């Protein structure tokens, strides 16, 4: 790995860490529960569904800080009582529906603060319970064996927490510390930095220079010592740059540094830490231990990679070892006979936060052993031990000493693979090159992951009760519009009219003193519902009339359709979803195919291929077939999920209804069923994706290396679309390939008129056809004189 690549990778890791940390805070609503009690309703599949009302998290957190400021100097119990009273008052207003926006924010803030106050006020009781457990154990020794692991564990726990008896906890802005401790991805970013560093130490082996390095005067002890210092420096720098930045961002997002002199147990996440220290003291201690743990992990990585005889397999072996260790760490039960594998594990030092947020003693021959204490105490000796082993290994391991068992295993595996590969024809070999050699299978796996996490539908909220009624009647009368539909609507209207007439009669009766007010109220409520229903029915009737006249004019059979499923998935509100799906599809296609042609050049195979019978037009044809296959794969995964969402989330029955009955397709130029329209839609998307794939092949054929091809492919295929879709740079609209791939934004904007869409498709198909012709021309060398 070149220095430039290493530096670029480190920079990307640091950037990704900071951005993902911020994203996590925003996604977690600044660690607040922003849902208000009650909620609003949406109409789905003919039924009303409740959706919780939420508030803007950032604004709520700002209110939280204001409330915190007002109660933090009060005694805890007083603060809790005051907050409880405030919550009650706000709850009432919310229940009555009279709460203003600021009061909604206050409710969320007060509720969160009350949780913390409850924790702090209850902390003393929790400590007392631990001591009571111990006393019960000793008092009733007949029933509990104090010499069992369980008994000893209770005693040890009580002893450790006894020192916290007089600790005085207080409220404070703990968001920064809690967010910093909860963001576990940073642990893996740090691991990645250390792994990259250890891999970079293998460069001389990869370049075949290990003999030369070992033969030089400074190539053993001095070099090993320098490398150890580099790991140490990288550990300190990595911890400062990753965790330090997270903490600083946390301070910026969560109301500043706050009071770092409070006992550490004041932070909810650290309540189980039996240590007398302040928040500030804990942070200093954490950073030192984190750097030491990183140093140990770095040494282990270095040792592991150096001890592998065949340098080609270092990444595979390192990944396998880490996977096994992670498996033990994650999946072994807390108290098991194998817990040594779980806790004396590299991930104990990678996920260091767990040592402070959980209190745990493990069973070691019946004796409870505190994981945190053991891990902390062992850290320095382990660092020294492994530093010595690393230096010894670097100085004494001979370049050609090993038996290369991995090489033998790989040879055996290759032999089995060769038996399969020899059966493949040219297309199969191209597929093998794309999926295996160019790591397309990784892209495919990432694509599936991304597709599973994409959002394919939006919830369409209902604005008024009349709209709810209209949706209800649409669902009730859905189907082909016939005289029977009109009759049913008339009948429904008649029923509603009776209710309204009854109310008028009841009013007269009440005025004449014939009925009581309570009876009138009953009639009034029914009449109110009937009035809303009547308005909803009128909306549906108007839509029916509109469809009937359009159907008559345009020659299609009018259907009343619940449009919500189609609006949710394909409508203008779902534009963001469509953008994302198209971008993911194009990105996956670009990454899958960017190496296809460039790989031949990178391998120096171009001349050799061209000298063979099928190394020109035939191979280009196979590459285009490959583009077709990859396009089908990508479209199936991404748009397959979209169809699955449509079928799963909505009970669509109107597949055979003419598509022009949908409002968004009222100007569609020809008559076809919704089913046929959907098939056409996905076919258009497939064609446009295929065109993109062919353009990527052209870019690939112009690049000398796969990486350059990937970068150029992404630059051409994605950047204009990204800038247009997300930063609204209108000038890049003509270059945004996501528009023709999405289809619907162009189609829905003109109610299905295809004149806005056709030029896009024609241009894209034209560019793709020109690219394909160019690929064949350049492969066949038609430019040459003859």
């Amino acid at each position, binding site marked *: 790995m070149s220095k430039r690549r290493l530096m670029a990778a480190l920079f990307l890791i640091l950037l990704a860490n900071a951005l993902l940390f911020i994203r996590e805070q925003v996604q977690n609503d600044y660690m607040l529960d922003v849902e208000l009690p009650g909620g609003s309703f949406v109409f789905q599949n003919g039924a009303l569904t409740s959706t919780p009302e939420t508030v803007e998290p950032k604004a709520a957190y700002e209110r939280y800080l204001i409330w915190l400021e007002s109660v933090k100097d009060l005694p805890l119990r007083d603060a809790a009582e005051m907050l409880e009273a405030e919550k009650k008052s706000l709850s009432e207003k919310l229940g009555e529906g009279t709460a203003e926006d600021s009061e909604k924010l206050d409710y969320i803030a007060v509720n969160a603060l009350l949780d913390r106050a409850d924790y702090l006020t209850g902390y003393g009781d929790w400590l007392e319970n631990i001591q009571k457990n111990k006393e019960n154990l000793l008092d009733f020794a007949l029933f509990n064996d104090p010499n069992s692991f369980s008994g000893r564990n209770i005693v040890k726990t009580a002893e450790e927490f006894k020192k916290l008896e007089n600790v005085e906890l207080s409220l404070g802005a703990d968001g920064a510390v809690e967010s910093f401790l909860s963001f576990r991805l940073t642990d893996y970013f740090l691991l990645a930095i250390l792994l990259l560093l250890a891999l970079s130490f293998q460069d001389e082996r990869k370049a075949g220079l290990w003999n030369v390095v070992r033969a030089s005067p400074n190539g053993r002890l001095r070099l090993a010592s320098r490398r150890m210092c580099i790991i140490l420096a990288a550990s300190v720098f990595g911890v400062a740059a990753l965790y330090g930045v997270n903490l600083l961002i946390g301070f910026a997002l969560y109301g500043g540094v706050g009071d770092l002199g409070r006992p550490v147990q004041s932070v909810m996440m650290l309540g189980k830490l039996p240590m007398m220290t302040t928040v500030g003291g804990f942070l200093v201690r954490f950073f030192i231990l984190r750097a030491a743990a990183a140093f140990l992990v770095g040494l282990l990585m270095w040792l592991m990679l150096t001890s592998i005889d065949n340098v080609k397999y270092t990444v595979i072996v390192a990944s396998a070892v880490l996977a096994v260790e992670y498996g033990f760490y994650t999946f072994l039960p807390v108290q098991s006979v194998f817990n040594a594998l779980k806790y004396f594990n590299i991930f104990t030092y990678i996920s260091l936060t767990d040592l402070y947020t959980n209190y745990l003693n493990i069973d070691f021959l019946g004796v409870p052993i505190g994981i945190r204490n053991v891990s902390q105490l062992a850290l320095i000796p382990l660092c020294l031990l492994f530093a010595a082993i690393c230096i010894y290994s670097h100085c004494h391991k001979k370049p050609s000493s090993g038996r290369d068992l991995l090489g033998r295993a790989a040879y055996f595996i290759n032999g089995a693979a*060769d038996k399969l*590969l020899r059966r493949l024809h040219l297309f199969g070999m191209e597929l093998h090159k794309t999926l295996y050699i160019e790591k397309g299978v990784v892209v495919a796996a990432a694509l599936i992951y991304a597709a599973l996490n994409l959002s394919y539908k939006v919830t369409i909220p209902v604005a008024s009760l009349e709209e709810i009624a209209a949706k209800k009647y649409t669902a009730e009368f859905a189907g082909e519009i016939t005289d029977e539909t009109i009759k049913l609507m008339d009948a429904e209207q008649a029923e509603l009219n009776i209710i309204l007439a009854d109310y008028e009669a009841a009013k007269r009766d009440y005025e004449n003193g014939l009925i009581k007010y309570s009876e009138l109220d009953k009639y009034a409520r029914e009449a109110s519902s009937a009035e809303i229903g009547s308005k909803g029915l009128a909306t549906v009737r108007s839509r029916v009339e509109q469809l009937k006249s359009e159907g008559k004019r345009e020659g299609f059979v009018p259907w009343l359709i619940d449009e919500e499923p189609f609006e949710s998935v394909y409508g203008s509100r779902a534009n963001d979803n469509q953008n994302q799906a198209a971008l993911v599809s194009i990105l996956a296609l670009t990454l899958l195919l960017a190496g296809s042609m460039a790989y031949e050049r990178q*391998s*120096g195979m171009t001349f050799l291929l061209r*000298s*063979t019978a*099928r190394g020109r037009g035939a191979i280009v044809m196979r590459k285009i077939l490959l583009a077709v296959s990859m396009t089908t794969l990508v479209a199936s995964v991404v748009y397959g999920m979209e169809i699955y969402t449509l079928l799963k989330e909505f009970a669509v029955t109107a597949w055979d209804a003419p598509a022009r009955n949908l409002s968004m397709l009222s100007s569609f130029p020809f008559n076809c069923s919704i089913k046929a329209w959907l098939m056409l839609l996905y076919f258009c998307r497939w064609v446009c994706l295929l065109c993109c794939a062919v353009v990527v092949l052209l870019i690939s054929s112009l690049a000398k290396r796969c990486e350059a091809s990937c970068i150029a492919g992404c630059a051409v295929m994605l950047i204009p679309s990204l800038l247009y879709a997300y930063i609204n740079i209108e000038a890049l609209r003509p270059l945004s390939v996501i528009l023709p791939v999405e289809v619907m934004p162009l189609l829905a904007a003109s109610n299905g008129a295809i004149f806005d869409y056709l030029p896009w498709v024609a241009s894209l198909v034209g560019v793709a056809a020109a690219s394909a012709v160019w690929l064949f021309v350049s492969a066949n060398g038609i430019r040459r004189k003859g």
Partner: protein
Amino acid sequence: MKLELIDLTKKYGNFTALDRVNITFSKGIYGILGANGAGKSTMMNLLTDNIPRTEGQILFDDGSSEKGGTDILKLGRDFRRVLGYMPQQQGYYEHMTVETFLFYMAELKAIPKRQAKVEIEKLLEITDLSDVRHKKLGGCSGGMKQRALLAQALLGDPKVVILDEPTAGLDPKERIRIRNFISSFSRGRIILLATHIVSDIESISDKILLMKHGQVVGIDTPDELFESVSDKVKELPCEPGELEKIEEMYKVGNVFQRKGKTWVRVVGDELPEAGEYVPEHLTLEDVYLYYLGE
């Protein structure tokens, strides 16, 4: 069967890499000798249609029709079906094993699977790659890669074989083995062999083609070439301070020690009066120096 080059010219801007070359290759092994930049690789790239030619024709006649030769550009795929090519620079898929690479090349050469299997087994044996057939090319030594590339060139029973430096990077034992195989394989084929290792050409070539500045300066059998320089090579003793002076005046070949004295071998039309002719001990290096030396 013959391969005919008529006025074959290749220009890169104002630079003429190949200048109106006219040769007819018939069955046999042709060794191509020339300094770097003489036009050997350009000629091979034109023969494999990997670069566009500026002028001229390359006609191939497989002897099946009475019409005579057809331009290889017109023949296209039909010519490439009978072509085996090993390029000078090692190009290979480093993540493919030796065996998969050969099967892939067999697919590209449109060789039926069954035939490919038999041929690959044989070629792996000949090129001594059987024991490393499942090793990835990226992990093979330079010699192994060279042998794998040679094996692919010989796949499909090609009638025209173009080998650019086929024995580069091989140890002497491997070189002899490969050289002997090429020699035995040459029957009924046109084999063009470019190499800097003159001993390879000397021992197996039926004819040797000498190239200089994009032109063919001589083509003959090795014996006739030796004959043509038999009175152009002398060996003479040289005093320690004289070597530079001799080098300025004559084309100097080997400098060697004999009976405690330093001797030099000089080549040219004008030779010093001192020294002795060595007609019985001529080498291709002498021919090379005489025709191609500056």
